[in-house]
């Protein structure tokens, strides 16, 4: 059992999920409440990383962060090492790839919240920020959970992008999905099955807790 890889994957997925929520919530907010006419174009752009095969997306990311690109050079200048084959690079690529999974369900949930509740909050003196944290977000909880779960699970299972940008370094970028892949490729099916099973059980436990705790408590049907 490759515990190191599992630990790394969980760390990566948790971090990416957290960052995606931090990024995704404001983006979804903007997509939902912006009055600009071209908002829907941005909405489409957000979904685009999805349509590329992960390895190809990874390839483009690799080009973009490589030593030949301005981004790569700037990063190297500041940190002293490249972005590729590092945990940071993996985080960056995963964020890019999973962004739509976070943004879209959250934006959909936001758009279903009754505007008059947001108005009521403002009239009780709440800043936009407080209205967001105390009214909009709790009322969109199911959508936010969906966004978080999809991006967490997707990052756990992500393979193509990680493979391309990570370089399969044990303890640094060798995630559990790559480990299982290697085990399958190396005909070590027993190990692969065991790792996959562990991953499934772990994910199932996490998801069950999340879903079990967040069943919308205020919509208890009356009967």
């Amino acid at each position, binding site marked *: 059992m490759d515990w190191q890889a599992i630990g790394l994957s969980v760390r990566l997925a948790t971090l990416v999920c957290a960052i995606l929520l931090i990024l995704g919530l404001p983006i979804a907010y903007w997509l939902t409440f912006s009055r600009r006419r071209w908002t829907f174009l941005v909405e489409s752009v957000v979904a685009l990383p999805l349509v590329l095969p992960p390895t190809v997306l990874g390839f483009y990311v690799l080009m973009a962060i490589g030593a030949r690109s301005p981004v790569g050079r700037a990063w190297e200048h500041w940190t002293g090492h490249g972005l590729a084959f590092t945990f940071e690079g993996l985080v960056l690529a995963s964020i890019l790839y999973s962004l739509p999974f976070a943004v879209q369900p959250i934006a959909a949930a936001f758009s279903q919240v*009754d505007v*008059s*509740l947001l*108005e*009521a*909050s*403002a*009239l*009780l*003196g*709440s*800043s*936009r920020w*407080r*209205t967001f944290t*105390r*009214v909009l977000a*709790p*009322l969109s909880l199911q959508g936010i959970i969906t966004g978080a779960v999809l991006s967490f699970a997707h990052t756990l299972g992500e393979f193509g992008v990680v493979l391309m940008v990570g370089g399969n370094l044990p303890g640094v970028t060798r995630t559990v999905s790559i480990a299982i892949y290697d085990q399958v490729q190396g005909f070590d099916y027993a190990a692969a099955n065991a790792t996959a099973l562990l991953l499934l059980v772990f994910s199932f436990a996490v998801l069950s807790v999340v879903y079990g705790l967040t069943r919308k*408590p*205020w*919509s*208890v049907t*009356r009967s």
Partner: protein
Amino acid sequence: MTTLRAVIRARVSADFLLDVDLAVEPGITMLFGASGSGKTTVLRCLAGLRTPESGRITIGDRVLFAADTGVDVPPQQRNVGYVFQQLALFPHLTVEQNIHYGLSALDQDTRRARSREIAASFRIEPLLQRRPDQLSGGERQRAALARSLVTNPQVLLLDEPLSALDHASQSRIIEDLRNWNAARGIPILYVTHSHREVFALGARVIVLERGTVLADGLPEHVLEAPEQESLARLTGHENVLDAVVESIRPDAATMQCRLSRSDVELEVPRAKGEPGSSVRIAIRAGDILLATEPPRGISARNVIAGTIGALRREGATVILQVDTGVPFEVHVTPGASESLGLAVGRPVWLVIKTHSCRTVV
């Protein structure tokens, strides 16, 4: 003084333009009007939820909105309390949390004390731990009212806040509201379509019709001496009668009119109109006295003989249809009706004081 002043023009739809000029002084001002007359729209403009096309809104010296200078204070900074017609309680918070919501600046203890106090006065203390979907309609209304009042706003906008409550609860809350504001003296704009509430609460009333102010003043003046027929009907002047001016008595400041298609004559207060011109006269059914024999030695000039055509009871009122050549509606108390032995077919005499007659246009 912190008077709320608003001159606003807002186009709601192709066929509805709100165009009002209001001054809401400290105390309770009733905003009265038929369904769809623009009451809620006025409140939304004042609260900053709708931006008028032009105009100016101020509280005392503070400019909330000015189309010319581009000032438009956002709702969260207007310090305006607002009870929505649809309440808009937060469904995910308990009643107590709803009430606390506007008190975030206070510490926990003060907050709790304030919310307990207001909950007690609105009799929702046992409901504090419930969520809105576990409340009845009237309980929700009380919770929404408590949520707004507890924040001590600079102006209070109430959109039919008591419409889901029984009369007993209404009276109690009206009393509470009056006491609450006695200590504060803020301008309160209170939307209603009920006469009862206008008289019970209002020091002043503003009447809206189709987006414009039809009348504005003391309830007894505005609703009792309406200058327009529509207002007369809206304020319960059940009798609006066509008439022709016969003669004018300048010394008594009255004029003599004959009701159209009859020979009934009425003396009414002098108004615009020369002999021969048409006028309309509005009389409240409750202002007409009824006698079962020809009254003698009374000061009233107008005594009209007729027959009871119909009689029915509505609440604490007996409604009579009296035929005098023209039909009159007359209201009496059940007690009076009984002691006078009123019944269909009985001859009666209507006694109408000159000053109970309003000339409307």
